[in-house]
């Protein structure tokens, strides 16, 4: 035993590169717990180097054509395949126009070298609390599609991420895609993060406002403040109440900074995070209201 994980090398493993989803699922079925899926590798390789996981079989899914799917259909929404990278999302016009929160999260995530490699599906499967992918997806009510040899199921992203590095995925299953519902016209969304002097966000926030219909639909999803992304339900309630949106912002921001469970960690203290929640919430909501 040594302190830390001072390794250069990876633990031994067998590398597989299936050409079809079926082939991949068969390998997964065969190796069960012993296998891990490799997409961009940004998470998996780092975890393996740290010896946090030591799979004896690594199944690279980058050669499977159907997982490269990136498609928007009016009324149905957006499908993002498991091997679609952040860079590909960044340059997809529909995301830039209709899914602003996702666009901003993708654009602000890490750096361009990582974005060329990292996938959004990988980002949520990693389930690290400080990443930028999950909050916008949860704000849009996105679901992941999960396939195994004998079944297909869909789980909301909010439930799929169970905690730090913990997801709702059984041996034999692959997350094949993310499905984001279409956004009604007039709906607005945005994303903001505070990462001054930090690689990861100390706090990030995706907000979604749909004010057109009779009922206001407001969602605020915070990342990096707790073991998994959380919605500020009380603050959402305040924003959904009667009256001019602008006049509700401060009480909602204050409420959000109080109602959530917030952690202290190596990046920031709980107190500072609560403060940032307030400031970021005010900023982003003001921006969204002004923008309309």
């Amino acid at each position, binding site marked *: *035993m*040594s*302190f*830390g*994980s*001072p*390794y*250069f*090398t990876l633990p031994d493993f067998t590398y597989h590169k299936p050409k079809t989803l079926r082939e991949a699922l068969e390998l997964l079925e065969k190796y069960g717990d012993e296998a891990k899926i490799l997409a961009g590798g940004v998470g998996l390789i780092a975890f393996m180097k740290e*010896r946090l996981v030591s799979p004896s079989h690594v199944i690279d899914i980058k050669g499977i054509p159907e997982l490269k799917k990136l498609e928007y259909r009016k009324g149905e929404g957006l499908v993002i395949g498991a091997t679609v990278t952040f860079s590909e999302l960044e340059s997809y016009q529909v995301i830039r126009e209709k899914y602003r929160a996702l666009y901003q999260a993708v654009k602000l995530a890490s750096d361009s070298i990582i974005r060329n490699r990292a996938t959004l599906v990988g980002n949520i499967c990693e389930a690290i609390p400080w990443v930028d992918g999950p909050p916008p997806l949860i704000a849009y009510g996105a679901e992941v599609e999960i396939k195994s040899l004998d079944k297909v199921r869909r789980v909301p992203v909010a439930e799929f991420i169970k905690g730090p590095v913990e997801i709702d995925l059984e041996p034999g299953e692959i997350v094949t895609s993310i499905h984001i519902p279409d956004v009604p016209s007039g709906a607005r969304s945005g994303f903001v993060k*505070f990462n*001054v*002097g*930090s*690689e*990861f966000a100390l706090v990030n926030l995706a907000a979604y406002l749909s004010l057109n219909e009779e009922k206001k639909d407001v969602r605020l999803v915070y990342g990096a403040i707790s073991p998994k992304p959380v919605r500020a339900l009380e603050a959402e309630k305040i924003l959904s109440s009667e009256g001019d949106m*602008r*006049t*509700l*912002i*401060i*009480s909602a921001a204050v409420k959000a900074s109080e109602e959530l469970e917030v952690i202290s960690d*190596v*990046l*920031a*203290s709980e107190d*500072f995070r609560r*403060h*940032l929640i307030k*400031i970021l919430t*005010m900023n982003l909501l*003001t921006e969204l209201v*002004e923008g309309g």
Partner: protein
Amino acid sequence: MEKLTFKYIGKPIPPYDGFYKVTGTAEYTFDIELPGMLYAKLVTSTVPHARIKKIDFSKALQIPGVVKVVTGKDFPYRVGMYAGDRDLLAIDKVRWVGHPVAAVIAESLEAAEKAIDLVDVEYEELPAVFDPLEALKPDAPLIHEKMEEYRHSPAFNPIPGTNIANKFTLVRGDVEKGFREADVIIEEQFYIPHVSHCYMEVQNVVAHYHLDGTVEIWTSWQNVAPIRQIMALSLGIPHNKIIVRIPYVGGGFGGKAGLGWEALVTILSKEAGYRPVKLVLSRKEQFTVAAVREGFYGFAKAGFRKDGKFIAYDVKFILDAGAYADYTVNVGRAVGYSADGCYEIPNIRVESLTVYTNKIPTTALRGFGYPESHWVLEQIMDRAAKKIGIDPVEIRRINLVKPGISETCTGERLREDAGNPEKVLQTLLEEIEWNTPPEKLREPWKIRSKGLALFVKGPAQPPNAAASAILKFNEDASVDLLIATGNFGQGTITALIQIVAEEFGLPLEKVRVDYIKDTHKSAYTWQTVGSRGLFTDGIAILKAIEDAKRQIFRVASEVLRCPEDHLELVDGEVRVKGKPWMKIPLQDIVMGYTYPNGNSIGGPVIGRGVFMSTHTTYLDPETGQGNPTIFHTFGGAAVEVEIDLLTGEIKVLKVVQALDLGKVINPLLVKQQMNGGSLMGLSIGLYEQIKFDERGWVVNPNFTNYYLIRIKDIPKEVVRKTIETPQSDGPYGARGIGELTMIGIAPAIANAVYRATGVKINQLPMNPENLWKALKEQRPDLFDEALKKFIESKKLAEVRA
């Protein structure tokens, strides 16, 4: 003799090694692969302070490819440069989390990395101490029980039976009397956390212990000489059997001074049956196993008269040196004798304690105690100015040293050509437009402000630290320059090549310096540290040039039939002054001159030259009086910052650096040094901190959680100004620059924040959380007002109405 115009000196010559680095052909220690080479990997401690009861490596030996596992018991050597307190692997006890307890040697890195997980170490834990203030208490756990046995340099004062690795004291004037006469007294506490050097190339070593007892070492280090010296003294291997080679190095910043892992890997090579062994640290090990910069406390009391005169300064520095203080004892000494910065303070008392704790060992880092002493002093100046009611510039003018007249706190009278600190200050004011108030912003919760700091530094070195140079000619009058000057990115070698080319009138490409520094083949230099390389080795080279010229002129005077003083060297030819048609090309002389009939005179020309420090002394152990250094470079930094009062973010918009370098040998490289130092200063000032948990574990040993400045954080404007007040004993009048460029940045930022908000940030880093906390504690009114302004400007005000 003094030339008025130069061909190369003062010209922006690109770095001589740029081609090799850009094309990827530069060879680093990491690239060294020897036949039959083995790989070593360290097993490190998981506990901060414990007796080693048992090390069981039987399972590790079963991994295919593992050759041997060794432990500290196998070779109980003590090594070190100054305190001499280090072991190669833990002997009997571990002193920090990360302390190497065993080394695995294997045929491949894979096998070695597998095997370290199978070495079981049984510890009997001892009480640990992580805070130097706690470690000073009489009942604190003792970290080094046998301190009196360590072979320390005479410049230091360790106190056996305590955790004090060095106690430095300095007394000048009567500080109590000074305080009695003071109208204004400032008392403050300051703190700086541990930081890492973050050089690109991690520490790595290849060593080969040959059967005949010769040791060959390749290492990513700054200097060859101390490695040989320390290994010879502590391992008992004769000096001339140790050959240390340093190829290109990917950065040092002080973290590769003294001795590294060379002694350990040498022993491993022997233990592995005289086969070469390579050890490469991972980045994580750079943060947990290799030495970093110490943590620092400063407790200062300063007295001023109401006219602004600084009359009493009583300061105590406490350095958190970690488990081994080998090099840090000298940092503790340097921070002590630099307490007065560039001010004349008649009454001063300094105590600087370098203290052991159960944390990662520490060492030099660019600036060597001066960033620490100036973090304290330069903020004191602004605090005093505000209390007295004068401008921060005015208080500096009043107290600034006057070269030729003033004495420093060690009693050293500054030479009259030491530099022009007044002009440095003036340059800063002009470039930062001190008297123009900063712009008011449309986002009124953000404010802009300007701040500045002055600084001075000389190399912290033993009084007898020497340098030497040899130059020899080839048949075509090209020159090989044999020097050991470290080449780890500073650009010194390029400047030294310029000097040789200038003096012989040769094209630059005719002067060659081998990229490999070699104890066997390069002329001796003590170390390339403390911004001293150009000064000390430059002088040695000028002396060698003089020596070679004498030999050349002697021959030429016979051939040209005139006295030597009628000759000059121009464009690679020896000419008779005033009769340039009477000449001999250098290549006809440098291997000896041959007359048409075959008679020959002279012979191959070899120039030799040395530098030896002049008038430097040890410091008096009671009073700290003496001459510690060979030059002082004066400089200053000014910044314009934008402070977000809501988030605590400090954005540095503009940096100005001004340095009196005596003579700029290469303006391009000087600018690069000033850029690099500015960014390093910003990074350490705003972001960097190694964090420990309550068990003494480093919790951010990677670049994800240890934030280093990024491109997006770089200020829009970095203004780099040089002043040239030549120092008559420097090469062309030059002084050192390397470390100076990061000293002033952090205090200048803190002063800018203080000036605009009155908020004191006595602790680094000045990251958003720390500023937010300070703001909330010290100026809650300012914070509330900022929030109000935000709400007003966003028209959210009617909310609760």
